[in-house]
């Protein structure tokens, strides 16, 4: 059974339909990259999976359990963790406090504050610094660490490279690769096509709320992807 199963999902922002009839599956241990232009619906889709947006129609299943109607904090308890676009750290609280608060979900697992410090060594000297004073890279590390503290089964990363210097992005992605090699299941939204193709097993491209191209990172050509990105092709399934 797939870890994550999305069926005919329809999410609306007021009158705007942001996600249209999206269906896909994510297997345990996979890394799926979600790409597409701004406004394609990627963030809304991730937030819909995490529970911040209630879908108009459709189903979301985690390991077979229907979580479509479940409130956000319960989904975290079931093992979904979202690192939101723009980090959304609690700026007035310290790095450690941001990490500790994620223990509210009550999920048992290996992640502790110390382990996060080991995974992101740049945070060690900033452990008691208020998050508002951190650099972009440090904030991103804290945000990912915060999500990890909930001991997730499915990690959703929304544009972790946003607003970061190339050096910081390298560091963040090194940690992401480490997570992948330890067996994590990840869905990530990424603007940088190269990075997305490098880390992901599978790629899905969204356009105006729909998935227009889906396939393995290795077999999809750049042409197919850019065509789909800019809408030159109808949805094609490539093996």
């Amino acid at each position, binding site marked *: 059974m797939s870890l994550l199963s999305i069926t005919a999902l329809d999410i609306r922002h007021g009158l705007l339909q942001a996600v249209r009839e999206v269906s896909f599956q994510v297997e345990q241990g996979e890394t799926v990259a979600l790409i597409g232009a701004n406004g394609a619906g990627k963030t809304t889709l991730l937030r819909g999976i995490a*529970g911040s947006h209630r879908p108009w129609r459709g189903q979301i299943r985690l390991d077979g359990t229907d979580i479509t109607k479940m*409130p956000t*904090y319960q989904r*975290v308890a079931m093992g979904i963790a979202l690192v939101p676009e723009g980090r959304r750290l609690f700026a007035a*609280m310290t790095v450690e406090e941001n990490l500790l*608060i994620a*223990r509210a*979900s009550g999920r048992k697992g290996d992640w502790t504050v110390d382990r996060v410090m080991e995974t992101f060594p740049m945070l060690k000297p900033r452990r008691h610094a208020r998050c508002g004073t951190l650099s972009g890279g440090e904030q991103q590390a804290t945000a990912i660490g915060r999500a990890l*503290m909930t001991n997730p089964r499915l990690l959703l990363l929304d544009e972790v490279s946003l607003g970061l210097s190339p050096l910081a992005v390298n560091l963040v992605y090194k940690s992401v690769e480490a997570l992948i090699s330890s067996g994590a299941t990840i869905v990530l939204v990424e603007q940088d096509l190269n990075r997305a193709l490098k880390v992901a097993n599978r790629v899905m491209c969204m356009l105006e709320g729909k998935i227009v191209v889906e396939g393995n990172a290795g077999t999809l050509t750049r042409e197919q992807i850019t065509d789909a990105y800019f809408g030159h092709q109808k949805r094609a399934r490539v093996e």
Partner: protein
Amino acid sequence: MAFLTALVEGVLLGGYYAMLACGLSFMFGVMRIINLAHGSLAIVAAFALWTIADRYEYDPFLALIVVLPVMGGLGWLLQRGILERSARSGELIPILSTFGLAIVVENVLFECFGADIRSLAPYVGSLAYDSFDLGGGSYIGELAVLTFAVAILLLGGLQLFLTYTPLGRQIRATAEDPDTVELVGVNSRFVNAMAASIALVTVGLAGLFLALRSNFDPYAGSLQLIFAFEAGVIGGTGSLWGTLAGGIILGLAQTLGAHIHPQGFLLAGHAVFLLVLVGRLYISRHALRGFLKARLGW
């Protein structure tokens, strides 16, 4: 010397105001709601304590053991029953809801207890009248000192709670970003209800000290709400210690004003409040203009 006594009195009065205001500021900080029923709920606590003291002859301080948890429960009900629902319609509707609640509460109290003015002072021996001799003919009330001490303990306790306990962290995070807090597994509805409970427990405590230091009647809540609001605004929303500063400034203004004119107590307090309000607006605009001048050469 009288002036010095007035100063001390004013500061001690500030302790009461801080205790009264912290619940209002707390609720606003976490849920962005100004509870217009705040004052009348303090009167509810006062009447509850009075009933226990008068009818069952328990010491009012002991009666807190019953009244404070009940207030906490009321806070929970208030949040889950009224505030949560009204907040969904925007930020204006909760004002109307809590105002309606205040009207209901004070008039129900009137129906139950009538117009008579009451006080808890007769039930605590001579605490309300005893004073410490400062020498030179000036005295300060024991009750005033006790109130101030309790206020400090309350604020300190709240601060420690918010800083070091998991629930305290969750409350702080929910206050900052209620959407993201859910994404890390915090049940924000539960947290808001707990915050409301805590706020009303402090209201209950304030009700005790109000009833001890002065008289109260079913309609006394309005004035207490205004004082709580003024103390909070003067001190600046944001920190508990700011609320203490605000309370002290208000207490000082009122006490000194009373020495100048019989109506001075209330007028001086309101005047300082309005001054702070205007000052804050004026300073913001000035700073803004300066900033624009420097950055854009306007």
